[in-house]
């Protein structure tokens, strides 16, 4: 029981410092789980991270996998709850604040000021992912380029390029 509570508290704190999402908080998660708490070793941490990457969905769910490793189902529930709840409550309050401020002349332009940063960081995330995939040689970069053009210039479903990428990977990278 004490362990579950510790998991909940640890991930709640991580949740509140996770500006930028899962990848931003990964070093701190490593420090907490491996170095401070000693819940797992380095190799396990890396393996679990890879495991979480294999599933679709928000990569913040890496927390769920870590929690599961530390204390099975209860650990998974506590880690997921801890990681999601505090930041979700903050987002809820922020939405409420904005609703109350609606009509203020400066609100729309101020919010618009965050737009270039959001798009810039999205672009950066894509570039970092592209760089990570280049460890498999040149072919992934060709897939990256083709997929970029496909998604940018057409409005067909990106499922086609994801499926195509998977098939090419199976045929040529195996």
């Amino acid at each position, binding site marked *: 029981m004490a362990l579950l509570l510790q998991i909940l508290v640890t991930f709640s704190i991580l949740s509140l410092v996770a500006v930028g999402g899962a990848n931003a908080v990964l070093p701190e998660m490593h420090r907490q789980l491996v170095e401070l708490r000693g819940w797992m070793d380095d190799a396990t941490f890396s393996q679990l991270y890879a495991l979480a990457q294999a599933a679709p969905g928000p990569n913040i769910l890496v927390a769920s996998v870590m929690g599961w490793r530390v204390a099975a189902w209860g650990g998974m529930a506590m880690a997921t709850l801890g990681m999601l709840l505090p930041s979700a409550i903050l987002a809820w309050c922020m939405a409420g604040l904005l609703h109350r401020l609606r009509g203020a002349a400066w609100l729309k332009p101020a919010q618009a000021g965050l*737009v270039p940063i959001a798009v810039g960081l999205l672009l950066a995330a894509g570039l970092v992912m592209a760089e990570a995939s280049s460890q498999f040689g040149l072919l992934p970069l060709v897939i990256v380029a083709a997929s970029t053009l496909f998604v940018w210039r057409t409005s067909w479903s990106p499922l086609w390029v994801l499926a*195509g990428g998977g098939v090419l990977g199976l045929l040529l990278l195996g």
Partner: protein
Amino acid sequence: MPAAPDSSPPATVTPSRPDLFLGYVKIGLFGFGGVAAWARRVIVEERRWLTEREYAEVLGLGQVLPGPNVGNAAVMIGRRFHGLPGALLATAGIYCAPLIILIALCLLYDRYGRLPEVRPVMAGIAAAAAGMVIGTACKMAGKLKLAPEAVLLLLVATFCAAWLRLSLPLIVLALAPLSITASLWRAGLILRKATS
């Protein structure tokens, strides 16, 4: 002064509660590597819940708050349409399918000590997902018709995060005040304040 008009303001639709949930299930389920790209695809292009600009603004807020930006956006978008039930439905939607898949992977991992050899397939999908994220950013930047200084700030944010690998809180802390100031100046609000 009226706000700069969008080139083709598309009519948006208000999703029903089941629509909201199912839309977010799709975002979670298909979001390999880049949920943000799928979220924009479903919310702006396929279902037209928000305009390009409205979505970018919610995402921007989601970015400066702690936690996953798309998760934060789900709370805010859910609340906007259906209050607390909406926020809960959108949040449950985005996480439920990936969690079920993760649990299955954990069980496989527990039983066999490792995952079946899917590395080449995942590497190919990851490369395509990277392109999807880059393509989505390009598409948004094109459609949002950003002012020159906004484009510059966009590129600075990209450079700081992708090349310098500065931590995101630091980037947000440094660039958000600059960018907001630029945007207020562009809207004429800062000068107006100075003269009145």
